[in-house]
C-alpha cells in the first residue's frame, strides 16, 4: 500500500492538492474568509463526526490498521476522519467559488437588491 500507515493521509493530501490551486487560479478568496469557513466546517465536523463515531461503534465501517496512523481524537475519532471532515468541505467550497467566479452565477448570498435600491443610509458597508 503506497504510504503505509500514511495511506489515508496521502489520499487527503492529494484532494487538497487537487483543489488548492483553485484559490489562486480563480481568486476564490476562501481562505481569506476564514470566519465563514470555520462556521461552516464546525457544524460539518460535529454532525458527520458524530455519525462517524456511531458507525465505528456499531461496526458499520472500520479502518485497516496498516493504512492509518492509529491516532484518534476526542471520543475515538480517527485523526484521518477528522481531517476528512475539514478537508473535503474546503475542497467543495473552493470548487463552488471557482465555478461562481468563472460563470457569474448567483448563489443567493449576494447583497440584497432591495436594500441597495432603497438607498438605506443607516445600512453600513459590509465590514471587512
Amino acid at each position, binding site marked *: 500500500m503506497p504510504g503505509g500507515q500514511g495511506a489515508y493521509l496521502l489520499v487527503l493530501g492529494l484532494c487538497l492538492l487537487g483543489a488548492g490551486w483553485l484559490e489562486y*487560479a480563480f481568486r476564490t478568496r476562501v481562505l481569506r474568509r476564514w470566519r465563514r469557513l470555520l462556521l*461552516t466546517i464546525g457544524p460539518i465536523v460535529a454532525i458527520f463526526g458524530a455519525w462517524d463515531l456511531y458507525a465505528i461503534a456499531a461496526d*458499520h465501517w472500520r479502518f485497516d490498521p496498516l493504512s492509518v496512523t492509529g491516532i484518534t481524537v476526542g471520543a475515538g475519532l480517527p485523526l484521518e476522519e477528522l481531517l476528512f471532515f475539514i478537508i473535503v468541505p474546503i475542497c467543495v467550497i473552493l470548487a463552488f467559488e471557482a465555478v461562481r467566479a468563472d460563470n457569474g452565477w448567483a448563489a443567493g448570498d*449576494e447583497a440584497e437588491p432591495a436594500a441597495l435600491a432603497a438607498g438605506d443610509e443607516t445600512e453600513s458597508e459590509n465590514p471587512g
Partner: protein
Amino acid sequence: MSYTLLVVLAIPLVVVVDLFVLRTRLLTRRLFWVTYAIVVVFQLASNAALTGPGIVRYRGDVIVGTGSWEGEEVPFLGGGRVFFAPIEDLGFGFAMVLLTLVLWVAWGRAGVDREPRSGPPRLRLNARRREQPSGERD
C-alpha cells in the same frame, strides 16, 4: 440501524434544510449542480482510493452491497458498489456536500465574510463569462 437507513434519512433531512429551513435553495441553482458534478468525479476517485485497497472496510449486513470487513476484494461496479465504494457513500457524500454549501451560503447571506467575493479568475475558461454577477436564479 444500517448505514443504508441512515443515508436514506439524512438526504431528505438536508434537502429540507436547504429548501425550507435555511431556504438557501441551492438545489434549484445551476451553480450547485455544476459544482456537484465536478465534486462527484473527485469523490468517486478518492472514495475508490480508500475503499478499493480496503483502507476503509464495511460490514456486509449494514450496506446493500458486499461487505469488506476483512479487506476482501470488492467489485468495481455492481453488487451495490460504485468504483469499489458502497453506494451509500454516494448518499453520505451528497448530504455532506449539500450541507457544506448550504451553510457556506447561509453564513454569507447573514453577512459573515460575504466580502471579498471570488473572482475575477486568473484562468480564463469560460468565454461567455459576464463581468458582473448575473443575479439570475438558475
